[in-house]
């Protein structure tokens, strides 16, 4: 049963979204329905979790929300200032950390002053300032993930979408990540975290479970 928690300050409203994929050769075409009317809602200042088994469609729903995948049906309302941290860090191996910040600052249309301040703040907050001159190919998996997350936060988005964001983090960074989330939430940012395993349930406003292509509030 699809559930929608209505708030009068929603930053994300997903309603009845469906998505299916075709696979296999033309003579043995199979259609897999991944999302069958998924609905969820994230309000300003809410930290919302989305859980589900492997292959349940969490990342698909995330990619539909972000715009990487086109939905088959349903409606979706999201702000233009949106931050997206994909499950696999989408970065350029040969570019340095600083060059990534430079490119994304341009993409977000930040001026030099705002970009510089945001960059310094994120490097300190996530503790990887010493790697600014390193190329991505020289970084550990955890530091890549920090950069992946920092790029999603650079423009201080209204809505932050995190797809398995702490994979590869050490314990200290993991705790720092949740503190960051709390601070952003307190400042009014809406955050949706997708994970197959959410241990920090007490920190979340609400948790949806994606099952059979639909979202249910489970906590």
């Amino acid at each position, binding site marked *: 049963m699809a559930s929608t928690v209505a708030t009068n300050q929603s930053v994300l409203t997903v309603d009845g979204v469906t998505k299916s994929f075709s696979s296999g050769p033309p003579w043995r075409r199979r259609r897999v329905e991944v999302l069958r009317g998924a609905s969820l809602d994230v309000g300003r200042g809410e930290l919302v979790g989305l859980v589900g088994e492997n292959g349940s469609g969490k990342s698909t729903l995330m990619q539909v929300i972000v715009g*990487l995948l*086109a939905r088959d049906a349903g409606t979706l309302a999201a702000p233009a200032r949106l931050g*997206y941290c994909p499950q696999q860090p989408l970065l350029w191996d*040969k570019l340095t950390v600083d060059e990534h910040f430079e*490119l994304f600052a*341009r993409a977000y249309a930040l001026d030099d002053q705002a970009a510089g301040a945001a960059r310094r703040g994120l490097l300190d907050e996530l503790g990887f300032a010493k790697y600014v001159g390193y190329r991505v190919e020289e970084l550990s998996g955890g530091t890549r993930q920090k950069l992946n997350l920092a790029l999603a936060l650079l423009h201080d988005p209204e809505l932050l979408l995190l797809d398995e964001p702490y994979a590869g983090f050490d314990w200290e960074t993991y705790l720092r990540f949740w503190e960051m989330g709390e601070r952003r939430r307190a400042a009014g940012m809406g955050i949706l975290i997708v994970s197959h395993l959410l241990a920090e349930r007490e920190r979340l406003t609400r948790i949806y479970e994606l099952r059979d292509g639909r979202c249910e509030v489970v906590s």
Partner: protein
Amino acid sequence: MTRIVVFAREQLRAPFTLALLVAIPALFVISAAGVLSDFASVLGGSLAGDAAVALSAGWAAAFISGSLGFFQAASSRGADRRLALAGLGPARVASSRIAASVGLAVVAAAAAFVALVVRVDVAHPLHAAVAILAFALLYLAIGIVVGSLITAPLEGSLLVVFVFLLDAFAGPGMSGGSATPWAVSQKAADVLIAAAMGTGSPSGDWVKLVIVTVGALVAAFLVFVASARSRA
């Protein structure tokens, strides 16, 4: 401009690629010209002598540019899409990526041209330089189109090589018959052979060469932009 510089820097940080950019055209021109003319005679073609050497320079620039175009587009696809989505838009990402790759194609064409003029006395060197650059840009565009549609390295690179082989066998001088429609680099080859033979090319050939080359780059831009949008 920043984006083009950053993307170009990214490409220049692969020293092996840079070495191949120079080494492949040089080796190809030195070693492949004789094989090309032998091959052409087996197929019933008339390609020989300086014309074969000149054509080998064009093919060398084409081969390396096509491979680079493919790997540039395919390997950076995820990050490029993310950047487009972040607000830059597919068109600006595509133009920056293609502009940076054109720089590499120019280097490959220059290396092939230098190898050519070192090996033989070219009657119209400027014509030859333009024709070799056209080969490089044409195949850069083909590589980008394939890399935008197919990200799997094996399948994508095989497709680029397949197009290259079809084009090479169907090109002027390679067989007894007239050039076939899938000889995409036919005009570049005509101009290059004419430059080597000292006959020059009619203005119609130049116009067609420009149309085909610019058209290929525009097609590459459009396919790149389409692939950076939401997938169905």
